[in-house]
């Protein structure tokens, strides 16, 4: 009775919220308050798949849902921003019967790392993907070991675990289990012998603390590793992508031809992960690969426009060094002349003035590769200090912490403007409005 009431009230709030454009988690919060065992009472006709990890959760979750739908299955999935317990509850209450039955073939959930134990101690979990574990938004996540410990509490609830063979940190979650599924990527033309990034969370072996060696890196500490001291190494993955072509987006998974529409190292890996998950859930490899090839990456965090006759591209990034590193890598593949405009505010959620995370971003890679850098947002001067430390000279740096003067200040710069802005979910600061 209490449960049905929670569903009805939650749906009413959800219905009302659609008109006033309010939160995607409030209905779930209300339901969880009315019935503390709300999640536990859910019954699933199909399988539950969860995606967690530091980077790529949303894309990979959408990819998994896309592959399954393309293959004719009914799928319920949550959206970015509703990946905490209340968000999951919101998604489920929208689709369940009053008795709590969810009738879809699959439920695909993106869940914040820290919330995986809470959610999956209550609802059954068939396939659990952990994409990767890297340094993340520090205020929320501390460091990768803390997150590893959190996720490990959820692992016993998962029937099957899908892990990244090229990540020495998250792969430890499979310790003591025998049927783990792994995915990985062979060396590509963009793999490097040394780590190009400052965020490298596995310089030492996470098992024995000896110095870790790498045959190559894909990005940050993700790559082919081995520890000379204890022998810990990248296993032969069950799903291996290879023959990666960054021009065409073509590659292979276990020798079968595959394709992505957004050819970055990160996305090839996400696609391999999603295919591994779908196959673990029962799909044939050929069918999973074919469906993955038609997936379009969401452009919610990307926009193209004009600023005073110049082409400008907005790329929103989280306050997370790895995602900014990814965007920098992308900008580096684009032609000159170009200006990189960075936009950084106080810490999202807490308003702390900390910018330590900027020192974990390899801005050094941009030195000599861009014509101008612009430092903007409320932490513009802190950005400038960071960039000077990276090696930029002040003559090619524009510092403007007043948004109303930003467009004028940018006129001194040249070429395509790449706006790399740190935000929580979207363009909350209206950077597009400022520049347009």
């Amino acid at each position: 009775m209490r449960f049905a009431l929670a569903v009805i009230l939650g749906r009413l709030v959800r219905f009302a919220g659609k008109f006033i454009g309010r939160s995607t988690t409030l209905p779930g919060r209300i339901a969880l308050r009315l019935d503390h065992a709300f999640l536990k009472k859910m019954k699933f006709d199909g399988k539950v798949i969860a995606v967690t990890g530091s980077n790529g959760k949303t894309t990979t979750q959408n990819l998994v849902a896309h592959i399954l739908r393309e293959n004719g299955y009914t799928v319920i999935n949550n959206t970015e921003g509703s990946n905490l317990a209340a968000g999951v509850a919101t998604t489920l209450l929208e689709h369940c019967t009053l008795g709590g039955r969810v009738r879809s073939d699959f439920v695909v959930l993106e869940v914040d790392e820290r919330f995986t134990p809470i959610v999956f101690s209550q609802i059954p979990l068939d396939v659990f993907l952990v994409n990767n574990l890297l340094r993340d938004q520090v205020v929320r996540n501390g460091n990768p070991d803390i997150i590893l410990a959190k996720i490990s509490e959820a692992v016993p609830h998962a029937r099957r675990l899908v892990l990244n063979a090229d990540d020495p940190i998250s792969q430890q979650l499979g310790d003591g289990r025998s049927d783990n599924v792994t995915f990985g990527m062979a060396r590509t033309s963009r793999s490097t012998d040394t780590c190009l990034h400052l965020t490298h969370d596995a310089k030492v072996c996470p098992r024995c603390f000896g110095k870790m060696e790498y045959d190559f890196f894909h990005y940050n500490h993700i790559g082919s590793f081995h520890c000379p001291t204890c022998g810990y190494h990248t296993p032969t993955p069950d799903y291996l992508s290879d023959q990666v072509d960054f021009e065409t987006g073509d590659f292979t998974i276990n020798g079968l031809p595959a394709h992505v529409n957004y050819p970055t190292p990160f996305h090839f890996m996400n696609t391999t992960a999603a295919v591994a998950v779908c196959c673990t859930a029962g799909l044939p490899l050929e069918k999973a690969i074919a469906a993955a090839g038609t997936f379009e990456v969401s452009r919610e965090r990307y926009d193209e426009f004009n600023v005073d006759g110049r082409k400008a591209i907005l790329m929103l990034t989280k306050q997370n060094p790895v995602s900014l590193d990814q965007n920098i890598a992308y900008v580096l593949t684009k032609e000159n002349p170009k200006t990189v405009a960075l936009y950084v505010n106080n810490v999202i959620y807490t308003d702390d003035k900390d910018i330590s995370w900027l020192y974990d971003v390899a801005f050094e890679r941009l030195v000599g590769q861009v014509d101008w850098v612009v430092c903007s947002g409320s932490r513009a001067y802190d950005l400038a200090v960071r960039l000077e430390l990276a090696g930029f000279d002040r003559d090619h740096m524009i510092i403007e912490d007043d948004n109303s003067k930003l467009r004028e200040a940018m006129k001194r710069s040249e070429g395509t403007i790449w706006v790399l802005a740190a935000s929580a979910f979207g363009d909350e600061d209206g950077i597009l409005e400022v520049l347009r």
Partner: protein
Amino acid sequence: MKELKILHLYSDLLDLYGDYTNVTAVRRAAAQLGYESAVTEVQLGEPIDPAGYDFIYIGHGKARNLAAAAPHFRQYADAITAAVENGTVFLVTGNARFLFGGSFQTPDGEETGIGLFPYHGTETGKVFTGDVVSRPVFDESVRCYGFVNRTSHLTGENPYPLFKVLRGPGDGETPNGTEGTLYRNFFGTWQMGPVLVRNPALLREVLHRITGEDCSGLDLSLQERALEITLAEFGDLQ
């Protein structure tokens, strides 16, 4: 060319939140004074000989990594204690401070430091963060800004504080008025990441103690402006 010898201890093992920039900041500022810096990195398992170094840095690390460092570090307790007592300049940030104190909790048990300071370490496993505004004891006319992000804190006595805290946490979980350690030329603080980059006064003091030179003329104007803007956001906190 004058030379500066810097030892960055456990640079691979204890490496979080841009801590490495404290070494970079010293190098850059020293270069302005005409010094060339040679940085030696010593890792777990390698011998530590603090003699001959002008500046020794140890940064914050993951809790399990710090636990792995402790037994190794203790093997060199006498030489390290002698270096501190003789006035070698140290900067130790975050939980690496535990290596210089008494016992401290780890995720899997307990470890001990070299016992130079009477404090102990408590591990909570919970992420604790916050802005810190403070005045350094060597010059109470200036304010510093820092950020704390940790799962552990100090307990027990800390008789030689480095900062008088105006806002934010001290060495414990609750504000207790002081933070950090300044003993001879040993600087210790929970303020993590680029603490020397963000605080020109602290950088000048550290570099002055390393070189004996007058550091007031260093051009740290961009850092000063950035700090001024940050501190302004806290109002006239005194």
